């Protein structure tokens, strides 16, 4: 009896196409592209702001172009996906045990969503969006 184990190759570049759960994972991971892009746009906005009124208002106008609006809609969609995917796993990373029992995951996730809504409303309110 000779041993000759057979090693199956796993695709290093397309493994995530194999299962929906891997696709969901990759979807979560690529939210980083829009978050990074948006952060870079914020840097650009601050640059324009530091260059004076004309530069800043030109920047705002550029954002109001169809391309700018499309960019922000895409970023908003990915940002929301990031928020949901981040909050939904919080009970795994930060379980809370009170006495003997663990606080149910739904409560921890719910608390995050609740805080998120409060913070978002506060930001919008303080920013004078209403």
């Amino acid at each position, binding site marked *: *009896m*000779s*041993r*000759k*184990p*057979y*090693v*199956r190759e*796993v695709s*290093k570049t397309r*493994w*995530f196409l*194999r*299962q929906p*759960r*891997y696709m969901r*994972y990759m979807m979560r*991971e690529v939210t980083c592209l829009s978050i990074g892009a948006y952060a870079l746009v914020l840097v650009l906005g601050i640059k324009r702001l530091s260059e004076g009124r004309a530069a800043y208002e030109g920047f705002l106008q550029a954002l109001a172009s169809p391309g700018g609006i499309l960019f922000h809609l895409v970023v908003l969609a990915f940002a929301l996906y990031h928020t949901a995917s981040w909050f939904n*796993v919080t*009970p*795994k*990373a*930060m*379980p809370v*045990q009170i*006495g*003997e*029992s*663990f606080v149910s995951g739904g409560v921890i996730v719910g608390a995050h969503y609740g805080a998120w809504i409060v913070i978002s409303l506060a930001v919008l309110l303080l920013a004078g969006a209403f």
Partner: protein
Amino acid sequence: MSERRVSLEVLRYDPETDSEPRFQRYPVPYHEEWVVLDALNYIKDHLDTTLSYRWSCHMAVCGSCGMMVNGEPVLACKAFLRDYPDEIRVEPLLHFPIERDLVTVIDDFMAKLARVKPYLIPARDEPASAAERRQTPAELKRFKQYTLCINCMLCYAACPEYGLMPEFLGPAAIALAHRYNRDSRDAGRDERQEIIAANEGVWDCSFVGACSEVCPKHVDPAGALQQVKIASTVDWYKEHLMPWVKK
């Protein structure tokens, strides 16, 4: 009654004659209460005695019969035929070398399991004669879910990062280390951190979460690994920014 048949497409590999695996199709009678393991046993008993696979308890306790059924890592004893279409493809657990047919080489996992010291390590100053080490129900509950792991390796077959980086310590081993770290009777965390807080330890995990989704015992290795990451990060800052703080 059981005129219905299902077709099992089973991966075959004979190291003595085959250069690579192939699939062999077996018609198997369908029974409402049969699991894939029953179908494999039927094949072994009635159709082909050469088929090799591991199994023992037939009740999701021993963790021997993990395999890929239609691409998903499952325990063959827990995978009911009634939950599958009439074409069922059975393969050995992914990410492990194939020894023969559905039998995998599990040396890598066994070695990793031993490395994380999955046993109680008492404090140095604790006398060996202190036989009774009491624990409250709350202290037990802190780690109890991780004790349910049966080392079936489904999580390793589900983890794409293990597939990409074979040196990764992996879900079950780290979750088990976490189990002992959370045990009030244990004082071995520092020793285990040397292993699980290394690059090939918890840091190869990217939190895909598949390990927890496939676990047949509802352990949550993905959660354990994220908790280890957070604790290791706190450790790092303590060690580097506050070296005067004694652990």
